[in-house]
Structures are given as structure tokens and as C-alpha cells.
């Protein structure tokens, strides 16, 4: 009896919650609508015009002309290719490295927290700062740090290179620094995943006579599935969002060798005041990111 009374009282409150809930949500919802949804719709709208910032010419609707121009633009296509290369290299390398570090750190030894902090430290550094420091690390000539390091590890076979101005090395150089900066974050996520695996699973596997590799393959990896998926999706999307380091280190060069989709969008929309063109690139960028997300979700769901 008391129970039902409680439930009805509760139910009455359920109905009452709506105005309060909306009031609590309003600031957040308004913020997201004004600063995310509306700009996003604006991008779509602008991309069908010839809008230029500050131009005295009248605005015209040009249909799909911006998309046609953008998708036949050599620099933009190169940007898409670069982002794909970035993704194909950085995602496996960074995830693999992060997993290795997480496995190494996942031991009950003293000092692991210190190592964790050290490996994580680059994540704390703003990309703009890291990019500037790495310009120096990639300095051309024998006195450059990266050049000297490569000279040492190749026993003098390495010819000093000008990384950031070499069409073959500019993008790898940007990728290396991105991996360096991002690994710590993936590592933390995976480490948390590892620490969440019940110990009994390993004990059971050990009782069955499973070796270290077997345990890793059949206990660790399946148990890490969710954090791994998360890490892969996030890193893939971040691979398409690369901007700061390109803007500061290479400005997309040489020969568009390191340009990216976002870099092209900002160059058009801001540096060249071609807002409509930048908006079209923005829309394409979003479609790419969305596709990656959907493909990966689909792919991983099917593996289940």
C-alpha cells in the first residue's frame, strides 16, 4: 500500500519534471543550436552561393558550382589524399604504440605512474607550441636534431634533409609529430581498459595452460574491444581535423605535399575571403568525417 502511494507520488513528479528539465537544458541547447547547428546549416546554404567576404558584387545562387570547382581543384584533392594517407599511417601506428605502452605500464611495479605521466606529457602541450618547437627539431642540415639522430641510428648513411620543404618528407614529418603528441591520450584510454579487465580471466586462461601471447590474443584483445574501437574512431577523425601544425609548420607545402582539407577550407574561407568556397569544403569535410564514423561503427558492430 505504502509502495503504491510512493509510486503515484513519484509519477506525479514525473509529469512535473518537464518544465524544469527544459529550463535546465535551455542554456546548453541554445548554445549548441546557435554555435553548432545554425553555422552548420549556414555552411550548407553558403556553399550554394558565390559569397565572398567584403565583395561589392551581388550574391548569386550558383547551385553546385562551388562543389564542382572544389572537387576539380588539384590542391583540394591532394588534401583529401593527404588526409587519407595520414589516417592510414597514423591510426595503426599510434594505436599500436599506445597499446604497447599501455601494456608495459600495466604492471604492478613502482614508478609506473611517473612513466605514465611522462608519456602523457606531450598531450598537455598546445599543438601551436609543439609545431614551433618541431620546426627547430626538423631544421635542415647536419646540425638539425632529427637529421643528427637519423645520422646516428643509420651509422652515418643518412644524408641531411630539409624535412619541411621536401615534397616526400613534409607530410611524414607532420605525421610523426602528430603521433608523438597524440599517443599519450590513446595510451591512457587503453590503460584504463586494461585495468578494467578482471584478473580472474587471466588466471583461468593460465590454468588452461595459455601462454602470454595466447592470453593477449584471447583475453586482452577481446576485453579491450570497446576502448580500441573508441581510440580508432577518435584517431581517424582527428586525422581529418589536422590544421594547427600544418598552418604553422608548412602552410600546406611544398607543392601541396602537406595540405589538408581543413587547411584548404581556412585558406579559402579566411585568407582568401572566399567564404562560399570554404563553406563547400567544410560541408565535404563533414561528410567525410560522418562517413568514417558510420563505416567504423558498422564494421565493428559486424565483428561482434
Amino acid at each position, binding site marked *: 500500500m505504502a509502495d503504491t502511494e510512493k509510486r503515484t507520488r513519484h509519477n506525479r513528479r514525473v509529469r512535473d519534471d518537464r518544465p524544469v528539465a527544459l529550463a535546465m537544458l535551455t542554456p546548453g541547447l541554445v548554445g549548441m543550436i546557435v554555435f553548432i547547428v545554425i553555422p552548420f546549416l549556414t555552411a550548407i546554404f553558403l556553399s550554394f552561393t*558565390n559569397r*565572398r*567576404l*567584403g*565583395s*561589392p*558584387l551581388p550574391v548569386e545562387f550558383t547551385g553546385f558550382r562551388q562543389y564542382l*570547382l572544389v572537387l576539380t581543384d*588539384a590542391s583540394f584533392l591532394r588534401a583529401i589524399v593527404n588526409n587519407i594517407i595520414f589516417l592510414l599511417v597514423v591510426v595503426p601506428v599510434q594505436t599500436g604504440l599506445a597499446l604497447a605502452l599501455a601494456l608495459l605500464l600495466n604492471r604492478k611495479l613502482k614508478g609506473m605512474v611517473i612513466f605514465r605521466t611522462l608519456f602523457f606529457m606531450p598531450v598537455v602541450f598546445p599543438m601551436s607550441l609543439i609545431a614551433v618547437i618541431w620546426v627547430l627539431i626538423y*631544421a*635542415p*642540415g647536419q646540425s638539425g636534431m632529427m637529421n643528427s639522430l637519423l645520422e646516428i641510428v643509420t651509422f652515418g648513411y643518412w644524408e641531411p634533409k*630539409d624535412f619541411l*620543404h*621536401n*615534397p616526400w618528407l613534409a607530410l611524414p614529418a607532420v605525421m610523426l609529430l602528430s603521433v608523438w603528441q597524440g599517443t599519450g591520450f590513446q595510451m591512457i584510454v587503453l590503460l584504463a581498459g586494461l585495468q578494467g579487465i578482471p584478473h580472474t580471466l587471466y588466471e583461468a586462461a593460465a590454468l588452461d595452460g595459455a601462454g602470454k601471447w595466447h592470453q593477449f590474443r584471447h583475453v586482452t584483445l577481446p576485453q579491450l574491444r570497446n576502448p580500441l574501437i573508441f581510440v580508432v574512431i577518435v584517431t581517424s577523425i582527428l586525422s581529418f581535423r589536422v590544421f594547427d601544425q600544418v598552418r604553422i609548420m608548412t*602552410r600546406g*607545402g*611544398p*607543392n*601541396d*605535399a602537406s595540405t589538408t582539407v581543413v587547411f584548404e577550407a581556412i585558406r579559402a574561407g*579566411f*585568407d*582568401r*575571403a572566399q567564404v562560399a568556397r570554404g563553406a563547400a569544403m567544410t560541408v565535404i569535410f563533414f561528410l567525410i568525417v560522418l562517413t568514417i564514423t558510420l563505416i567504423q561503427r558498422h564494421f565493428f558492430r559486424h565483428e561482434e
Partner: protein
Amino acid sequence: MILVIIAVLFLPSGCGGGEKDGPERLDIWIHSAQPDERETLLAQVDRFNESQKEIEARATVIPEGSYNGQVQASAVAGDLPDLLEFDGPYMYNYAWQGMLLAIGDRLPGSVTRALLPTLIEQGTYNDTFYSVGNYDSGLGLYADRGKLEKAGVRVPEGPAGAWTIAEFNSALAALAEQDADGKVLDLKLNYGNEYFTYAYSPVLVSAGGDLIDRSDYQSADGVLNGPESVQAMKQVQGWFEKGYVDQNLDDAAFTGGRVALSWVGHWEYGRYSKALGEELVILPLPDFGNGTRTGQGSWNWGITRFAEKPENAVRFLEFILQPGEVLAMVEANGAVPGTRTAIEQSRRYKEDGPLRLFAVQLMEGYSVPRPRTPAYPIISSAFAEAFHDIRNGGDVQTVLDEAVRIIDQDIQTNNGYPPQERKKEQADHHHL
């Protein structure tokens, strides 16, 4: 602390009006420039403020990397300062957009008449005088006389005696032989984009090419990617391929004695003459076939349509255009004084002065103005990118074809930049 933060948040930022009593505020944007130039200009602002009580000028330093982007956005946002400094040729675009007020009728005739003809030419668009410079620029090859003599290279005298391109190439080879690492030429690769258009487009003209067809400014096709321009840029690419060019990461290639030649403008004179003393000589750029050509034009001043009291900006311009102030500025940045009187008074530019060459180049027609069209920003960025691609080994014809495509596409999307009627000069006119 929190109160301080809140107070700051509500302070007007950017351009404020002179609502309060006291002096009227004059907002000015300046580019970051070399330290000496920046400090001199800031000192001029201080002197101006001390010289009178009605106007208080305030300068904001804007970084050069995104200067044009900032100007464009601020113009639309209505947040431009009263007085704007910009690299000369950007004026055509700014004026076309209706961002600037005409300056010609506002400046006293005595001031405009004293200006160098190159400055008047640069500051005029659509028959209207929009922007004024207190100095013009000089561009040449700074050389270490000792190194030239050791390599047995002829030292040219005056623009008429410029090295031919063949001579220049063999000079580079001879210098490289004397040099430890073979890098003997500094092309200021550490500079930002606009420099490359300024400094290397004269090469095109010297070879018989150009950035764009200047008869109507409607297309770059056949000009920027024509055989003359391609030939010229192949020569430039050759210097990189042969390893003559220093990367200049520390901006000390020439002052540190690593290279014998530095291809740069007037602004390095102070630093270079300090480092090399009597050994420093300044030579004309090599002749690619049609006589030596060099850059001209520099940072300019324009009054924006947001200036509530344009006459205040004019007073500031009159102040910095006084011979004494012009000389103070060129003393700091090495530029060619913007008036003939100042040239004759300048110890560097007068007859037999160490920088006389730069003045002669300007006054005797060796300099090439950058294209006077609203399409200039896109031309400049396309050419600068092409320069980098060529530097990095791209096929010259392909790279220049791509630059032409970018330029022509931009001109077409802007309907050929049709001349706009001069805007009614209202301070509050908002053009969205």
C-alpha cells in the same frame, strides 16, 4: 581579481570612439615589421601624441602572416581602425571593396607634390588617390666584396651594368668553389609569402614575362605561364638544384658570413652594414634579357571608411610625412625616402650615398610596380605558392599553369572585377 576580470571583459576592445572628454582617439593598425622599423613607428606615434593635444593616436601591431585575412574580416565586421597600414598593392582590392576613403583631396597639395612619382602611381586606383607611403622600397643583391674579388667576379656598377643571367650563374659557380658548403646565395626563404611576389616577380618582367596581362588585368594565361616566365623561373630553380641557396633558418646566412650574396630589400641595410662594414656592396638584380628589373612599393597608409574624423588621420599622415620624420623612419628601416627633398637630404640616398642605387632604380624606371588590380591578393598568393613549389623541385610549366588557373578562376568568379562607383563617404556605411 574577479572584479578586475569582469571590468576587462566589458572594456571596449579594438576601435573605441572618443566619447569621453579629452583627446579624440585615432586607431591605427601597423604591421610587425623589423624591430627597428616597428620601434621607430611607435616612437613616431608617441611624438605625434606629444605634439598636439586634440588627438591621441593608438597603434596596434598586427602579425604579417594573416594580415590580409584580418583586414578583410574586420572590414566586414565594421571593426577596422581609422588609419590602416597595408602592403601597397593590396590597396586596389581594398579600394574596390569600398573599404578606403580617397586621400588625394584631403592631403595638402604641398605634401602630395613632394611625393615620389612611384608612390603616386602605386597609391592611385581608378583615377583616385587612395594611399600614401612615407617611403618606397629598394631591392637588390647585397654582396660581400671580399668574396666576390676572391672568386674573381666582376662587381657591377649601377643598374645599366647589371650582371647578365649567364654572368650571374657563373658568378655563383665561382663563389661556390670558394665556399665550404657551396651555399653562396641567400634568397630570404625564411620570409612570408608577400616577399616572394615582391622580390621575384621583377625577374619575370626582366625576362619578358609578367604576373598578368596588364592591358586589362583579365587573365594571366600566356603571360605568367608563357615561355619567358617559365624560362626565368627555370633559372631560379637551377640555383636550388645546384645547391647554391642557403635555407637561412636563423636569418643569419649573410651576417654570419655563410653566403656571399643576399637577395633582399632596403630593410636589411642597417644589419648588413653593421656586420660587413666597408666590405658591403649593393648590386642590381641580374638581367634576364630585357635589362635589370627590381621591385617597388612598400607599406602604405589608407584611411578607412570607418574613420569618424578622417581629418585626424590626415593630421597623423602629415606628421609622419614631414621631412624630419621621413628621414627618421628611413634611417631605421633603410627604405628610400618618399619625397625627393628627403632623398637629397638623406646621407644614404644622396648622390654617392651607399644606397643611391635604390633611388636610381626607382627614378630611372628600372622598378616594376606590382599589378594594379583588385585581383592582386590572389595573384600574389598564387605566385608565392608557385615560387615555393618551384623551389621544391616542381615542374616549372605545370606549377605556373596551376597558378594561372587559380588567378583566372578568381577573376572570372568576380566578373572581372568591374570598377565600382565610388562609395558615398559615410563613416557609418555598412556593406554586408
